[in-house]
Structure formats: C-alpha cells, structure tokens
C-alpha cells in the first residue's frame, strides 16, 4: 500500500508583471516523504514554495493539500479566492522556515514558539509553554528559551524558527534555503535538526543548495529550470547518473561532488 498524497501540484503557473516565473509545475509529496527542489538561481524554487503556503497566489493550475485546493475554492467551475480567515487556517497546516529566520524580534525564543499555539491553535498558556519547551529542547535550545532573537546566533535563531514551525504540528513543512544565510560552521547544527525531523516522519518540501544533504535525506528530487521541472527522480538517479546536460553542469558547480559531472 502506498502512502496517501499529501501535497499535489498540477500545472502551477505564476507570473510577475508579465514574466512567467512558474510555467506549469507538477509535483507530488507523499505523506512522510522528503522532497527537494534544486536548480539555478531564479529558476522559481522560492516562488513555488511561497505559492504553496499562500504568500503568493498562483495564477493557474492547482495546489491540493490533503485533496483540498489551496487558496481557492471551486464555484461552478469558477475559481473563487478563499476568505482571509480560510487562507489563514490553511496556512496554519503548513509550516515554513525562511532563509532569514524571520523570528519575531520582540518575543523571546519561547514567545516565538507559543504565539501561534495560543492565538491560532487556541491552546492554554501553560500547554503552549510545555510544547514550546519540548521543541526548544528537541532543537537543543532549552537553555535559551528566555532569550530574544538578537541574543542568539544565526544557527540558534534558525533552530528556534524550526521549533516555531514544527510546534504547530503542520501537515507539511517548507524549508527555503534555511542554511544559506548562516556562517559555514553553523550549517551543521541546523541540518542535524532537519535530519532528525525527517527521520521522525515529518513530511518536508525543501529548497536547498546543500547537495550532499539533499541527496542524503530526500526521497525525491526535482531539478527546476526556468520555471519548469526539467528532471526528477530519486536522488541516486538525479545525482549519480544525470542524463540532462544542464543538470550535469549545474551539479558540476558543486565542486565535482558528484560522479558523472562533466567539466
């Protein structure tokens, strides 16, 4: 028996001011899977993630979460935008971790985690606090729960951001280049947290330039090129026997880490 499809994108398009950035993205994420998007700068990876949790509205195609269209409902064949309240409710089921952490600067680490728990999920302060402590502990920051973001290193801030997202018990977690803004020596601590989340069965869709990590944790990898999926498959296939010329040259930029790179 196969796992149910959690996220399904069909022909997703998006343009900014007449420029087509996504030209029909198809993608499935099964429950418990880790799916990764790789590709050159400007290929549309971030834009796609932002469409999934409605920070952008896609123009065409559909994105289904647990079979339910994201952002729109169908009314007699017409697409009708959901109300802000419904959109917020859908977003609460999808967690997102950003490249720049985006922690709330006026709240402590634990305040960052509890805000959504109390205001969105309606949990009591005590319960939210308990959950926050659990997750801050999971990301190795229980000693820092009372600190404000400006008192934390980049790696610590990013781990708080992961705790904030995962504490909401989302169906799906999105990661957009979450280690790109970090000093090299801080990357590992964040990847460790992500690896352990993946192992615990969390469904994850990630954009990353950490190719070794992507190859290690992903069940499925998609290579995006100018708003289209150019190559997709299991990591062994994508990384070790890339047939696509441009994928080969893309991978070749990563210090010849991968066997079949040409240059």
């Amino acid at each position, binding site marked *: 028996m196969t796992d149910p499809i959690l996220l399904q994108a069909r022909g997703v398009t998006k343009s900014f001011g007449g420029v087509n950035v996504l030209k029909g993205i198809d993608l499935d994420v099964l429950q418990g899977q880790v799916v990764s998007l790789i590709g050159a700068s400007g290929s549309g990876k971030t834009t796609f993630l932002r469409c999934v*949790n*409605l*920070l952008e509205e896609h123009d065409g195609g559909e994105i289904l979460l647990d079979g339910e269209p994201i952002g729109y409902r169908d009314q007699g064949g017409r697409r009708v935008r959901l109300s*802000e*309240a419904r959109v*917020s*409710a859908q*977003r*609460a*089921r*999808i*967690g*997102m971790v*950003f490249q*720049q952490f*985006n*922690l*709330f*600067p*006026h709240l402590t680490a634990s305040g960052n985690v509890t*805000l*959504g728990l109390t*205001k*969105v999920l309606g949990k009591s302060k005590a319960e939210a606090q308990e959950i926050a402590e659990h997750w801050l502990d999971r990301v190795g920051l229980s000693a820092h729960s009372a600190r*404000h973001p*400006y008192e934390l290193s980049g790696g610590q801030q990013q781990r708080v*951001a992961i705790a*904030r*997202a995962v504490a*909401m018990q989302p169906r799906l977690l999105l990661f957009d280049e979450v280690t790109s803004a970090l000093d090299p020596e801080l990357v590992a601590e964040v990847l460790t947290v992500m690896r352990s989340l993946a192992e615990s069965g969390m469904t994850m869709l990630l954009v990353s330039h950490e190719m070794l990590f992507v190859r290690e944790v992903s069940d499925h990898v998609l290579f995006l090129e100018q708003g289209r999926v150019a190559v997709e498959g299991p990591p062994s296939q994508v990384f070790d026997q890339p047939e696509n010329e441009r994928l080969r040259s893309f991978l070749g930029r990563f210090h010849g880490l991968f066997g079949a790179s040409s240059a």
Partner: protein
Amino acid sequence: MIDYHFDWTVITRNAGFLADALLLGLGLAVASLAIGCLIGLLAAYARLSRWRLLSGAVWIYVELIRCIPLLLLIFFLYFGLPELGVRFLDKFETFVAALSIYAGAYMCEVFRAGLESIPRQYVEASKAIGLRPWQRQRYVVLPVMFRITLPSISNNLISLFKDTSLAAAIAVPELTFAARQINANTFRVMEAWLTASALYLLTAYAIAIALRQVERRYAAIR
C-alpha cells in the same frame, strides 16, 4: 545697577499651588498624548488604506493641523465651538481636545512611518504560522512598531508637556498660569518665572530620563 531683591518666600508660600499646577500640566500632557496616539494610530492606518478618499481626508487633517498654530486651535475650540452650539466641554476638556487633535496629527506621521518600516519578513512569518490579519497587526506589527517609534513618542510627550503652557491662555491653572497668578498677586516677577522655568526644565528632563529607561527596556530589536 539692577535693583531687584529676590524674595523666595513667595515661592515657598505658594509651593502647594505650584505643585498642583505642575501635576495638572503633566496630566494634560499625558491625557493628550494617550488620546493623540489613538487618533494617530487610526489616522495612520487610514492614511495607508487603499481607500483614496479616506487616506486623502487624513492627509488634509495632518497637513492642516501641522500648519495651524496650536494656540489658534485652542482658541477655535474654546471660543468657536460654543458659537456652533457645542457647549458641553469645560476648559480642561477643551484644552485636552485641542492638544489631542494636535498630537494626533504628529503621531499619525510617526506611526505611518513606523508601519511602513516594519520589515516584510515579520509579516510573512506571522502569516506562515496562520495568524489572521488583525492578529498579525495586534501581536506582531504593532508591538514591533511601538518599539521602533518609542523615541518619537517620548519626544512628543516632552514637547506636549511644554505646550501645556498654552492652556494659560484659556485660564487653565497649569504652571504658566500659576506663575502669572503669583506675579499678579505679589509682583515677584523674577521668582515666579524663574521657578516656573526651572520646573519645566526639571520635569522635561525627568520625563526624558524615565523614557530612556523604558526605551532601553524595550530595545529588543536589532
């Protein structure tokens, strides 16, 4: 040679009167700042709204108030409104109304700039955890904006406190009025004005120091 003999007993004899006057001035300033902040906040949101009519109306309010001397505004409300049939405000309320309207225009600009300066990432993070629009304002945007604008709010309080001296013009017994009263009754001109000036100075300074502490306490940003 100047032949003026200081007699400070007039001040000590009137100490209670002066203290009451000082507290009244402070009260007027705080009340006006509070109401002014409320007006300013609503006005700032209106100014940023997509509704051109609303944002235009607020623009006119702000520009108008910033170009009119405060004393004129006070006179207009105090002498003008009764002519128009509005008589339910006493002189204290009239003054607070004038100072609030005045403060509101300035706070509108402070808050508008504050709201516009909130980095987009914070709003996106609050969307991503599923907060609704008003919750995003209430729990993320406003607290961050409050911290960013705190220095301007402090400066406005000090400036409003000094502006309460204009209430003397409509016989509100605040510090300036009290000093003039002592003058009139005792002819101790220098003692009265020097004391009033010193009290303004000390109080403004004390407010500044106190608010500096508040700012430090909330400097959790950057």
